[in-house]
């Protein structure tokens, strides 16, 4: 789903494809002898989010900064689409790579619109076009256009971070590097920034390398997650689902935490879930039944609530999940919300398609644990 500005206008026309980033046996040794990254080999594939996660000091920032040559590798090679970055003039390289950091790093003396237009200015776009582009991006990251004329300190931390993302995207670089961009904002804002990033990424398909120390964030955002251990060694590189089900060693297992099993639920699909369609009844139903719980629905199949055999006039709470789209985590959540212990499965339009009973949920979990 590409938006129009990516298509055929201005410098966007020369837009490069997303690129693959390759670490080929890369080591970074600082002058004081610290080995920050130790023989790292991995690939950050085109159009995907690769997350570097690990405890503080494990070399995440160092690894990231070697990609845009803010730090040069001591040994080994980093390649962009097969071309060693060491051979590219740093300012030129960097103008083609978006970069977002924790404190946003906005220029305090420039208005928001000019902050966003930084790289277009550096690339020599004319001022008007650069500003127009900046205003587009401002809206794109969910900010009010009036913010464009403000200075950074007049924005909240979360808003500054959005500007940071907009600035990184301004010249439409194929690669985006993000160093703990959402760590300094409160949890609610963080969640919305993460959702926003996923939404943008579904439209833009950039090659993103995202650094975090937060395993939940890594699992939520990553197409692939690289777990690093202190000393700069790669402990495991896998899709989040695989990471949770098959941690490579004790370090990874410990880093994933004790609720690893619960987190796995979000990767188990509700698609094959066995549903009961014989539990739905219309409003005002009062007939005899053998079922302990029945689901009342409106004439157009919207859920109303559960009624029990014992007290058929009291409508009880229900929880829903979208069949096939939501994970088992949502299904279990929906089941726990209701005294019936059953989860209501709905389609994308919100119409009831059936009910997942405890037995059905149990079966699905047992199956997932085996597979």
């Amino acid at each position, binding site marked *: 789903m590409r938006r129009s500005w990516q298509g055929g206008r201005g410098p966007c026309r020369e837009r490069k494809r997303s690129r693959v980033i390759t670490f080929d046996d890369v080591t970074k040794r600082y002058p004081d002898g610290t080995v920050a990254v130790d023989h790292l080999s991995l690939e950050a594939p085109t159009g995907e989010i690769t997350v570097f996660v690990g405890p503080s000091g494990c070399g995440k920032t160092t690894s990231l900064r070697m990609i845009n040559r803010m730090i040069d590798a001591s040994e080994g090679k980093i390649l962009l689409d097969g071309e060693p970055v060491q051979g590219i003039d740093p300012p030129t390289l960097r103008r083609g790579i978006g970069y977002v950091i924790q*404190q946003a*790093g906005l220029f305090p003396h420039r208005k928001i619109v000019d902050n966003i237009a930084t790289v277009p200015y550096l690339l020599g776009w004319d001022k008007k076009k650069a500003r127009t582009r900046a205003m587009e991006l401002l809206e794109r990251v969910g900010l009010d256009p009036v913010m464009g004329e403000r200075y950074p300190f007049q924005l909240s931390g979360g808003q500054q971070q959005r500007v940071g993302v907009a600035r990184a995207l301004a010249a439409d670089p194929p690669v985006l590097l993000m160093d703990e961009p959402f760590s300094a904002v409160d949890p609610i804002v963080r969640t919305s920034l993460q959702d926003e990033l996923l939404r943008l990424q579904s439209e833009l398909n950039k090659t993103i390398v995202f650094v975090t120390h937060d395993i939940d964030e890594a699992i939520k955002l990553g197409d692939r997650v690289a777990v690093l251990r202190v000393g700069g060694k790669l402990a495991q590189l896998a899709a989040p689902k695989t990471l949770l089900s098959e941690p490579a060693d004790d370090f990874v297992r410990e880093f994933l935490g004790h609720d690893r099993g619960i987190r796995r639920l979000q990767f188990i699909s509700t698609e094959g879930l066995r549903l009961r369609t014989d539990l739905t009844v219309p409003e005002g139903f009062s007939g005899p039944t053998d079922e302990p719980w029945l689901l009342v629905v409106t004439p157009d199949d919207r859920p109303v609530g559960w009624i029990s055999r014992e007290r058929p006039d009291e409508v009880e709470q229900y929880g829903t999940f979208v069949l096939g789209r939501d994970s088992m985590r949502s299904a279990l959540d929906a089941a726990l919300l209701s005294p019936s212990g059953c989860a209501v499965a709905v389609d994308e339009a919100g119409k009831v398609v059936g009910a997942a009973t405890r037995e059905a949920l149990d079966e699905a979990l047992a199956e997932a644990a085996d597979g």
Partner: protein
Amino acid sequence: MASGALVATLLSPVSDGPPTLWEWLGRNWDTGRVDSIKNLLVDHLIMSLVPIFAALVVALPLGLASVRWRWLYQPTAGVFNVIYALPSLPVFMLLIQFSGLSKTTVIVPLTFYGCAVLIPSVVDGLGSVPDHVRQSAVAMGFTPLRRLLQVELPIAVPVVLAGMRVVAVSSISLVSVGALIGQGGLGMLFTRAYQNPFVPPALVGIVLIVLLALVADGLLVLAQRLLTPWVRARRAT
């Protein structure tokens, strides 16, 4: 000088007694002679403004170099502080060997004094650039020169201008010391008042020097407002 006598001089009626301050100022403002008050004012302006800007021109590269090569800072600041500490008279004696009893002999030490204040201002100003801002400028693809001109120096402006205000006021005041060698600008009025005990010249000198200092300071505050709207906006919120 007793304050009673001062007030009396100011208030004494126009008569055949000693002239009042304003009469005296009017009579001596533009006599066509080199020591008319107008000419002294112009001299004073030249001898104070040149060092302010000369100091900026010298302090900027030295400050930048001190940031780039950290080890340079202490020796550089040290040299200028020592010069600052030297008493004016021997400094003039030394300089007279080269530039005689000219304005240059006043301008040169004042420039050094200005540097003693401005070099640390430039260094502190650049130090006031937050590290994450500098890092993100690097990451966006600024070349070092462009980063300096478009990011670091603009952010250093408020601190440097604060230093400029100190330099401006002290230069304007210190020029009068040049009276020691007959180049004191408005300071010459003090020698005149002292030589034939008479209050108005001294008073006119003080008032004009203070006014000059206030105007210079006001202009710098104005410059600060125009150059750094982002600092003013910060105060407003």
